[in-house]
């Protein structure tokens, strides 16, 4: 028996959902126009008024928002409620220059947690379950989102955060955790550690896992399912729209249902911005229909994706998105952290290195690795190994501060990194995730 958290919404007829979306969109555009001067200017420049947006069919008239807008408007420029009504912020993982701070009213948090509750229920979660949340807690949305969803469902919630894997497994065994929420790479690592500790899936009670915040493959899904003896489900979200729970996988395990009563999805041509018909591959764009404090309209996610309304075996009528198939920009997701090559370049220039670099991203034992190859300059050369290694450490430290993850630095000879005509190939992603 398929369980739903909110059957009325999750199985709503297309007509009723469209009506709900139309009403919510019209009200939301009015709210944004009246309260967010930044977006009002964008609309004015395009000659669009709230009256022009009567239904989701009019959405294409609205201007897009991009990460650059979020940066320009940082921190309060896109805030649509007085700070006195906001109760929380969340932020994207340590990416100076591209940091996103999202604001929440209590109502926003309730709706966000409700979306996560739908995801937990869709994998079979009830108040009988023990839900172990090993996403990071703090500014990162993963921990707080699933934690809140788990409370709503009534699961016994273990707010573990990530790390200390042996302790994770000890809790898992002692308290009989049945649902695991974390990044897929951490799930794979927990699986390996379990086996290293001499246990098998028979020694734990996990039945389902909700894994997201980074790209993963079907092979990884099978591997994790085998090593932990559970069913592995995908979840999608981004800090800009709320966090995890924008879309979630159901028993069909073949794509994620978008909570489209809250987040209206479009697929556009990333070059022209033109809206593409259902089933086309393009860039995913979200419009928040219900968020009060930080309601983004037509936010370009840069994730390349396909939407489908084909009937799903779970009975939900919510539109489905496939796993993101790539990016329309050069952002990399490494260990769940968003990394832009331009940030690496900034650190190199600040530290006096040549901005000619090469990044290699790989996955070893299910953990992402980041190797940065940097050309040494004559000024930085020293005749002792000690000095050069301390330069590597200093550079790695500066990148860790900027990116939030620790790269391995490799000093190489000047002019040894290929200089190409036009767009340089600075990034080699060996992970084969798409």
């Amino acid at each position, binding site marked *: 028996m398929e369980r739903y958290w909110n059957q009325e919404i999750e199985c709503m007829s297309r007509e009723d959902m469209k009506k709900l979306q139309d009403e919510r969109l019209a009200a939301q555009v009015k709210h944004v126009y009246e309260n967010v001067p930044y977006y009002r200017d964008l609309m004015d420049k395009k000659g669009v008024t709230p009256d022009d947006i009567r239904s989701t069919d009019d959405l294409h008239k609205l201007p897009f928002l991009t990460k650059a807008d979020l940066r320009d408007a940082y921190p309060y420029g896109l805030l649509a409620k007085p700070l006195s009504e906001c109760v929380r912020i969340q932020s994207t993982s340590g990416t100076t220059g591209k940091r996103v701070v999202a604001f929440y009213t209590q109502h926003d948090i309730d709706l966000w947690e409700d979306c996560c509750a739908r995801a937990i229920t869709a994998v079979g979660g009830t108040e009988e379950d023990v839900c172990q949340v090993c996403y990071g807690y703090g500014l990162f949305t993963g921990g707080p989102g699933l934690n809140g969803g788990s409370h709503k469902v009534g699961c016994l919630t273990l707010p573990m955060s990530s790390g200390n894997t042996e302790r994770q497994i000890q809790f898992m065994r002692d308290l009989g955790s049945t649902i695991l929420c974390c990044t897929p790479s951490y799930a794979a690592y927990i699986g390996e550690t379990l086996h290293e500790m001499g246990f098998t899936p028979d020694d734990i009670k996990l039945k389902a896992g909700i894994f997201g915040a980074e790209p993963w493959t079907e092979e990884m899904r099978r591997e994790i399912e085998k090593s932990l003896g559970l069913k592995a489900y995908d979840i999608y979200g981004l800090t800009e729209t709320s966090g995890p729970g924008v879309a979630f996988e159901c028993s069909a395990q073949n794509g994620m249902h978008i909570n489209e009563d809250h987040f209206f999805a479009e697929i556009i041509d990333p070059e022209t911005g033109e809206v593409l018909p259902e089933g086309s591959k393009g860039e995913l764009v979200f419009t928040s229909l219900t968020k009060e404090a930080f309601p983004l309209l037509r936010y370009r996610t840069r994730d390349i994706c396909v939407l489908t309304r084909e009937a799903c075996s779970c009975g939900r009528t919510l539109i489905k998105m496939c796993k993101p198939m790539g990016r329309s920009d050069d952002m990399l997701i490494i260990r769940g952290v968003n990394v832009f090559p331009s940030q690496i370049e900034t650190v190199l220039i600040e530290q006096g290195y040549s901005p000619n670099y090469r990044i290699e991203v790989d996955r070893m034992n299910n953990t992402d690795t980041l190797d940065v190859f940097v050309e040494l300059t*004559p000024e930085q*050369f020293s005749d*002792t*190994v000690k000095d*050069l290694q301390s330069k590597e450490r200093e550079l790695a430290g500066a990148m860790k501060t900027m990116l939030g993850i620790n790269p391995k630095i490799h000093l*190489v*000879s*000047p002019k040894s990194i290929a200089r190409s005509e036009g767009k340089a190939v600075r990034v080699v992603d060996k992970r084969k995730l798409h």
Partner: protein
Amino acid sequence: MNTIQQISVFVENKQGSLTAVTTALYENQIDMRALNLADTSDFGILRLIVNKPEEACKVIQNAGYIVSMTPVVGAKVDDTPGGLAKAMCAIVDAGLNIEYMYAFVNREPNCANVIFRTDDNERCITALQNAGVTVVPDSEIYT
């Protein structure tokens, strides 16, 4: 001069790096007196004592390598047990750190040359001389 100019070269750990440096020296008729290689998993530092250091520097630089000159101290060490220990004790007793050292043969019988890289060449030379160790003059190396 009592110090010797050592040529230090940054070499990546990849096939052909060392060959290119030594070939460049050969093509310019530069004679190597001593050679030492410090390596990590990523890179190496090639240290050379040559007969024409300034020319060698230019040649290696033109071949596309990062190169620098580092003054180091050479000591003539008796070719008998305890010969090296005597020199090292003198340096350490003077409170100096030896960053690295390497030995090479010379044309004199019963004596080996040892290169010391410490944090203070002046004090290193004084310490060696006070202990009765002969310091290699650069005139013996350069031609």
